[in-house]
């Protein structure tokens, strides 16, 4: 029983991380029907943005008050990259054959990884991420189940972000604009919604959550790596599809389900094919199964012609 609870805790931690990134895929997809394949890199840039903020301003400090400023640095880095990316790479391709934006996304993804590897000092190998008081440190223990402090931060960050996002989408003018554009772009434009602006905001929102995920990942793993975006991005995409791409609640649910499924696969698949060596294989297998048999996801999404 403790074992199961422990795996559940691990799964929910991982799942929160996936969910934070998955929202970015889903928001952008819901509005422009584009899989922003480079979103995993936005997450990675966020982690490096936080690290750079810390190294430049607070080298050696571990006090908690540093954390909000690090998060701010992460958000600035991620949002800038995402918005620039939308402006110079994706916007000119609107209306191009479907292959074009996807290939562009792969190009951006590789270029961003390489740019960080080549130009961030020391990034050719893993860089230690600063440990902050309160949110990192000795693990907490409840009835035999250990919970990392960073895990609490991650889950907390997801809850807060999700609540904020829900409020933003449902209770602000811009949020209503987003809903309108995702419903019908042309009609929204006729009603006076600035579609270009809404699309930029969608990219920025996704980047905002990805940046927070980047900080959380840094705290959880105690290091960052220029490659961290690829796998995380792919898993988060799985989560987004699992929940029903284009559906924001779905992304959160999908992330949590994927995280728990992965943790349970590690803990409970017996024999040679269990254990952490195969966990990514199971995650990818899940991705394929969902894409093939239930492309609309758990919570369902508008069925779009995928041709």
């Amino acid at each position, binding site marked *: 029983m403790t074992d199961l609870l422990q795996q559940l805790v691990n799964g929910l931690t991982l799942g929160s991380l996936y969910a934070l990134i998955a929202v970015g895929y889903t928001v952008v997809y819901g509005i422009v029907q584009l899989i922003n394949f480079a979103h995993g890199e936005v997450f990675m840039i966020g982690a490096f943005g936080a690290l750079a903020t810390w190294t430049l301003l607070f080298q050696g400090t571990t006090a908690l008050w540093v954390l909000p400023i690090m998060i701010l640095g992460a958000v600035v880095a991620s949002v800038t990259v995402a918005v620039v990316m939308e402006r110079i790479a994706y916007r000119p391709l609107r209306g*191009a054959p479907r292959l074009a934006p996807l290939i562009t996304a792969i190009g951006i993804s590789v270029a961003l990884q390489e740019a960080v590897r080549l130009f961030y000092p020391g990034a050719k190998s893993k860089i230690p991420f600063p440990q902050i008081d309160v949110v990192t440190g000795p693990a907490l223990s409840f009835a035999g189940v250990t919970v990392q402090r960073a895990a609490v931060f991650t889950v907390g960050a997801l809850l807060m972000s999700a609540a904020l996002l829900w409020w933003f989408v449902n209770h602000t003018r811009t949020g209503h604009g987003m809903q309108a554009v995702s419903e019908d772009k042309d009609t929204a434009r006729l009603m006076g919604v600035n579609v270009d602006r809404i699309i930029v905001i969608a990219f920025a929102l996704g980047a905002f959550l990805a940046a927070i995920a980047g900080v959380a990942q840094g705290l959880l793993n105690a290091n960052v790596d220029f490659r961290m975006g690829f796998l995380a991005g792919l898993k988060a995409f799985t989560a987004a599809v699992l929940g029903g791409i284009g559906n924001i609640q779905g992304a959160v649910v999908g992330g949590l389900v994927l995280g728990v499924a992965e943790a349970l696969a590690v803990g409970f698949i017996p024999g040679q094919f269990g254990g952490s060596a195969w966990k990514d*294989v199971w995650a*990818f297998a899940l991705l394929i199964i969902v894409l093939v048999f239930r492309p609309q996801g758990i919570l369902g999404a508008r069925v779009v012609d995928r041709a």
Partner: protein
Amino acid sequence: MSTSTDIETTYADDAEKVSLWDRIGRPVAPFAWPMVLAGAVILAAGCFLSWSYTDEVLGDLSIDFYPGAVQNLMIIAAVLAVIFALMYRGPFSRLGEWLASATALRVLGLGTTVFMALVIALIGVQAGGLVNVMPGAWISFVGAVLILLGAAGLTPRASKDPLHAHLPSWLEILTIVALLAIVLFGAAYVLDIEDGTVFSLVVLFTGLVAFTLTRAGFFTWVGIIAQTHRRVLMLGAVAVAFLFPFTQDGSDANMSIATQVLIFASTALGLNIVVGLAGLLDLGYIAFLGAGAYVGAMFSHSAFATIGWKPNFLLVVIFGALVSATLGLIIGSPTLRVSGDYLAIVTLAFGEIFRLAMGNLDGQDGPRLTNGPNGIPAIPDLEIGSFNFGETHEVFGITLGRFANYYFLLLVVAAIIITVFTRLNNSRIGRGWIAIREDEKAAEAMGVNTFGLKLFAFAGGAFLAGMAGTIKAHHDVSVTPDQYIFLESAFLLAAVVLGGMGTVAGVLIGATILKLMPEKLRFVADYRLLIFGLLLVLMMRFRPEGLVASKRRQLEFHEEDEELADRVEEVHLVEEQEAKA
């Protein structure tokens, strides 16, 4: 040159550019033509003088009346300028009716000016100060500027459509043969350059000449005669490829690159069937090459091979290809239900699963098949009959080393793949693929078996990659999972996209560029992935149809371009007429 009755005219320049050039050129217009000629003569004359004080910069440019490599390039440019000038007015003016000589001269003038400025800057930087630049370089620079200004003063004229140019066959064939010979000796010459900077300059210059000739309309004509004399072209290309090792005189360094290019190009051609012809994006394609390589390794005589059976290599090739094709069928089967980006993600996931599985099947986390991350090392060289691929051989007094042996084998494989590719492309199957690519629903409604054809594209492409993989295992000596990461798939895709989806020549060029650049330019090697990532973005933005575009494909990316649509239609009509005749 005989002309056909109706003369179609095309304007090489669009209105905006003409106005800019004209503004620069108006003052010199009355004496523009002599100015170009004089510029060319001055440019060439400067090349015979010393360019640099020291002999350590860009090869050796310091000796009077003994032009070095870079100076030779500028002499070629000067000759080209003279030829185009004489086309504009003078003895070649009949040729000038067909080629846009003024436009070509403008490109050439701009290019040589930039080139000379670059060379002067390089001498200044590398030798420590512009003091080291000798008068010769400045003279050549002035010549280049004169060509540029003079060309601006010339008036671009409408040239006739090369589609209606009918030269005697022997002349057309001679052109093809001459071009192929230039490719062969050019490749041998370029690969011989040790100095990275000189190499870049030569590549830059080649690009400049190619661009000049393209703007002149020369390559449009070459494309048309290549269509008419397809057999000659194929035969000649095979001969050139076959003769290449003989120009290397036993040196393994370049042959090693050449074999890598061939393996890469063969795989990219296989991918081109899936992406270029059928329009299905496959992001896990490297797994098929990997499957072939693992089969080749497991059945090899390596001490680390995990399977005791050592069949004949021919059997292994077929077996590897079949295993790969089976994987292709499995990966392709979701196409029944998913398409577009979802399919791309499914293939990506399959590719990752393949790599992870190969890394796990080490006896600990699964059955022992692949030795996990260590892979299967020490794969011996191939031995077909009594011919050992590891030994060197003497042919006509020229030594052919290990890599040359593999080169010939890979050449055969590449030839097979190209044949399969072109035959499929021109068949009922190929037309089915095009239909699927352009509109799947319409294709299905017209009775195209879409699922079967898509599955066949996957299995066929995988079959060819698997074949190449079995040879790669022996060529590389060892097989490990980290050779088959996602980046490699992306790299293959980049070759296809860069060269031109759905074309053979394009993919060959793309593969060569992507493999050759990092090998020859060490400073590029580290930035290779960054450059190629940006390249993908830029290509999609500015030329999604690739360097060598198939006209039909171009039309798919530029649907609003009415002129292009008419042109494609016209080319088809002429082809049909010729087929009937």
